[in-house]
């Protein structure tokens, strides 16, 4: 009886994924379109790292720029200073982010809400200052000369230096991130995280170790943002301390909040609205900031569950169910 709905859901998801892949072509196929959509995909992946902490653990982490930057810096150092390929750089990005997340997770285990946000913000500031003043990380000059992305899978080789060539990698990373987040929310860890967030007493009575869950969720979240940093480093060919800037933090937070929390496609839609507006319908820097501020105030005051809550119920439910 349930086979048909599942079959159709898988078919629908595959069709949607294919449609998404060809979206740049439908939008004209210019290099600008590919770059914008590739940036949306990369920055969405970055936002999903924060989304897990914000939506599932209920905490506002201000350290996710550090994970994003860690992924980018690890990739840059391994590829520029040690001549390693993109796969090694990817592994390095994930391992470095895990190490940082472990330290940060242990430090913030006993902090909640405001204190958690403050400690994570302080951690990001410390990381930025280390990066700006340590020659090994390029100091204030950053690291230049990151080669074009080149990945080899068996006999197949893929290379990317231009926006249209980057698109499949960015889109692939986005799909992978969506799958991981989807699986996480259905996993025991995801359910435990939600319980720790929504009802810590019940979680404790059920024998769920809240601190352990928080640490594990941190360890799942950090590599997601770091992988986005890995790709962004190759996309931009330069990493610098600007990766810790509030620009990325505001983008992540707004991307998560705008469409609505704990929606699988929420951060993607939020990031697409933000980056798309700036890229295709820009009103200038001041105009864009006014639009962003007005939209944020409007969303937080009039539909705190996000823009997706304005849509009819069925599509909203569909978004959640995916």
């Amino acid at each position: 009886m349930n086979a048909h709905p599942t079959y159709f859901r898988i078919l629908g998801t595959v069709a949607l994924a294919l449609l998404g892949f060809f979206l740049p072509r439908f939008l004209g196929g210019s290099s600008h379109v590919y770059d914008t959509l590739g940036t949306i995909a990369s920055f969405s992946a970055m936002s999903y790292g924060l989304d897990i902490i914000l939506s599932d653990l209920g905490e506002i982490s201000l350290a996710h720029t550090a994970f994003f930057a860690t992924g980018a810096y690890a990739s840059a150092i391994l590829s520029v200073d040690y001549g390693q390929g993109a796969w090694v750089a990817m592994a390095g990005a994930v391992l470095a982010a895990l190490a940082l997340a472990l330290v940060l997770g242990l430090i913030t285990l006993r902090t909640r809400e405001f204190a958690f946000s403050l400690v994570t913000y302080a951690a990001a500031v410390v990381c930025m200052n280390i990066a700006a003043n340590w020659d090994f990380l390029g100091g204030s000059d950053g690291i230049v000369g990151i080669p074009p992305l080149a990945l080899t899978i068996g006999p197949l080789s893929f290379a990317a230096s231009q926006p249209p060539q980057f698109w499949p990698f960015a889109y692939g990373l986005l799909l992978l991130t969506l799958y991981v987040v989807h699986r996480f929310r259905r996993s025991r860890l995801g359910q435990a995280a939600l319980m720790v967030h929504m009802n810590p007493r019940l979680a404790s009575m059920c024998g769920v170790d809240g601190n352990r869950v928080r640490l594990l969720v941190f360890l799942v979240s950090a590599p997601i943002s770091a992988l986005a940093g890995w790709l962004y480093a190759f996309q931009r060919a330069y990493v610098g301390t600007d990766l810790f800037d509030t620009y990325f933090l505001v983008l992540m937070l707004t991307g998560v909040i705008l469409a609505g929390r704990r929606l699988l496609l929420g951060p993607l839609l939020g990031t697409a609205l933000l980056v798309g507006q700036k890229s295709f319908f820009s009103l200038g820097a001041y105009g864009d900031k006014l639009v962003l501020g007005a939209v944020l105030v409007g969303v937080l005051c009039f539909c705190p569950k996000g823009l997706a809550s304005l849509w009819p119920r069925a599509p909203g439910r569909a978004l959640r169910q995916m």
Partner: protein
Amino acid sequence: MFTRRQLMAGVALSAAVPMRARAAAPIKVGLIVPLSGGAGRQGQDVANAVQSMATLINDAGGVLGRPLELLVRDDESTPAIGVAKANELASAGVAVVLEGWNSPVTLAMQPILARADVLDITMISKADPILASAANPLAIRLNSANAEDATVIASYLKSRMASGRLVFVTENDAYGNGAQHGIEEEIKRAGLSYDIAKTLKFPFPQTDFRVEVTTIHDAKPDAVIAIDANEGAGLPAFLQQYAQAKVGAPLICTVGTVSPSVIETAGAAANGLISADIYFPAAEPFASNSENKRFIAEMQKQFKTTPDKYMALGAASLEVWAKAVAKVGSLDRKAVAGAIRGHEIPGTIFGDVRFSANGQMAHHYAIFTVQDEKIVVQN
């Protein structure tokens, strides 16, 4: 002597060249500068200057018989936005991008433009890796380099005092740290005996320097070296707070950070500061340069302003590129860069300018002070 018919034909031809240039498909020229935020005013000034130079070039027949069309974008002093704008302009099919107020933004945009095979000319950003990066082997920069600037400051210090205590107030980024490193190296090289009492680092957007100024006061330095490229807000604020605190030690601002707009904003607080620069529109050799006079007249006509160094660098970037294109008869990135790097470009608003093999334009410096809110050139 020309006959009347020859003269008429000549007049008709000269009038026809610009018309033909305007009829041909325009060459798109990209310009990426900050048009908002702390450096927004200066970025807008640079955009105006480039527009003036484009008008002069178009009125003279364009480039390769085609008019120039300027596409201006705001990088918001943010590398990520600069990258997006560089991609956007590359996609729009520009032949060249003139860019660069902040070094980190330039460093982020360089590889994007190089990968898109678009010639990239850095107008103002000063960080050393801009010319050293393998990401852009055809780099070209018009503003003076940190290393040259450092030599000028060290020479000035040497002429004033053989030893003493220095305090650095340094913008903590690629430009600021590079500039300080360069000055320290030059001081060592000159064999001067200076004690660096304090190094106070601050982020680019900072405008509240009360803590730094108090620290400087307590350090009792013989001279203070300020490295702050935030001319829209940061440097004027520092000058005002420094004057209010009555520190007393001579204040030396690094080369090229004190534009007329800084003095206008800081007011009397700018009096007494010492700096050096590479362009003074009313001083020789610029005052008698016919190209410079044409440029100043166009700026007066279009924007009712006298250009400062940054505006001159912006306009000269377009002028140098246009002359190189005319010389090689092509818009090809490598050919045009090859005609600039390691060569002399005659007849620009900076005079006959020479570029070193790494793409750096050479300059002549002059020390100046500010008296009664006016720049007074010393040599």
